[in-house]
Structure formats: structure tokens, C-alpha cells
């Protein structure tokens, strides 16, 4: 009886895992696709805003993608995402530390990429690039804040 029960449990867990995995993979693929679509439009916008020539855009695109990946890696502390209404005395210090850490790490990546970008675009264009990125980030934050994301 006990063996039967254990066998049924094992089958149930395997079935659950097998059906959940494709869904997680599908979600990941959908996220990746959406992120790529956004990146394409973002690059088009930057090309226009910075006044990049075709040559500059061709050199800029891969470097910018690499730069965004680097930013994504260092600013990935999920504790920073906790919303104001969910802050408590127990988690506030952790949240503030995570947010400050994200800010410092992101600034560090931006500083590191200054010279890399300077090989492709003018210093004024770099300044504008960082300002535009900041603007996009603030809009994303508003969307995250007001749409229960």
C-alpha cells in the first residue's frame, strides 16, 4: 500500500514537472522575443536621436547590446523591486541596500563603457545616449509602478 502510494506520488510529481517545464521555456522564449523587439526599436530611436551615420550605427549596435547585457547582469538584484506599499521594517534595509547596489553597479558599467563608446561616437553623443537611457528607464519605472508589474 505504502509502495503504491509512493509510486503514485512519484508519477504525479513527474507529470507536473514535465508539463511545467515547457511552459516555463515558452515564457522565457516569449520574454526574449519581446526584449529583442524592444531592443530593435530602441536602437532605431537612438540612431535617430544621436544622428548616427550608417557606419556608426553598424559599429554602435553590437557594442550597445553588450553594454545593456552588462547593465542587466549587475542591476539584477530582485530585492530592489519591492514596491513601497510592501516595505516593512523587516525588509527595508535589505531593499535599500539592494537599490543602492544596483545604482552603484550600473554607474560603474556606464563609466567603464565611456571609452568604448568614445571609439565609435562623439562625446556629446555619449552624453545624450546616457540621458536618453535614463529617460527610457524612468518611463519603464512609471509603467512598472502603475501597472502592477
Amino acid at each position, binding site marked *: 500500500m505504502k509502495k503504491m502510494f509512493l509510486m503514485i506520488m512519484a508519477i504525479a510529481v513527474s507529470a507536473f514537472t514535465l508539463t511545467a517545464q515547457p511552459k516555463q521555456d515558452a515564457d522565457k522564449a516569449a520574454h526574449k522575443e519581446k526584449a529583442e523587439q*524592444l531592443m530593435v526599436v530602441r536602437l532605431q530611436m537612438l540612431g535617430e536621436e544621436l544622428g548616427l551615420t550608417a557606419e556608426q550605427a553598424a559599429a554602435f549596435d553590437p557594442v550597445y547590446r553588450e553594454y545593456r547585457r552588462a547593465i542587466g547582469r549587475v542591476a539584477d538584484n530582485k530585492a530592489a523591486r519591492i514596491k513601497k506599499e510592501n516595505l516593512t521594517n523587516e525588509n527595508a534595509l535589505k531593499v535599500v541596500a539592494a537599490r543602492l547596489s544596483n545604482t552603484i553597479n550600473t554607474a560603474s558599467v556606464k563609466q567603464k563603457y565611456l571609452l568604448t563608446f568614445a571609439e565609435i561616437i562623439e562625446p556629446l553623443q555619449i552624453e545624450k545616449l546616457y540621458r536618453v537611457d535614463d529617460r527610457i528607464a524612468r518611463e*519603464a519605472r512609471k509603467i512598472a*509602478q502603475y501597472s502592477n508589474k
Partner: protein
Amino acid sequence: MSEMKKMPYRLPEGAMEEMKIRSRAAVRRADAERTAHRQEHRWMVSLAAAAVCLLVAIVGFMRFDGDALSDSPYYDELMSMMDDAPAEVIYEMTADVVWYGGDTNQL
């Protein structure tokens, strides 16, 4: 008085005085109404001018943008795509925000 004696009808005592008083009062009333209308008209014109100035200021403030991003069609497209993007993707895009930098909205 001698002219009044020649008139074909007789007016009661003090009628002329009363008529003068009434006509002066009527003139004063009419003048007061005209002044009130003029003041009201001035208020409405001032209010309309203030509303127009406020509207122009609001529109100007909304359009004023250090980098004029709002004029870019790619910016509009990006914003509309972000509206229905998954949470994970949106959070990645918030990475550039400086926390506790002074003028940021806090989550």
C-alpha cells in the same frame, strides 16, 4: 410757476420734484447696471486670458523636453510596446534609474 399756470392741466403739488427725483434715480440705476456689466465683462475677459495663458504654459511645459524625445515616432512606438511587455523585461529596462537621486518616483 407762471408757465405752469398757462398749462392746460394742473400737476399736483411737488409732482415735478418727484419726477426729477425718480428720473435721477433711474439714471443712477441704469448707470450702475452698465458699470456692473462692464466689470463683469472685464472679469470674464481676464479669466479667459488667464485660462489661455495657463493652457499655453501647460502645453509648453509638456512639450519642453531637454532631448525632444517625445517628437520621435520611435519613442512613441517604444512606449506603446513597453506598455504590454512582461514585467521581467520592464524591470530590466529600469536598471538605469538612480535610486534616491532626488527627483525619481519611488516604487
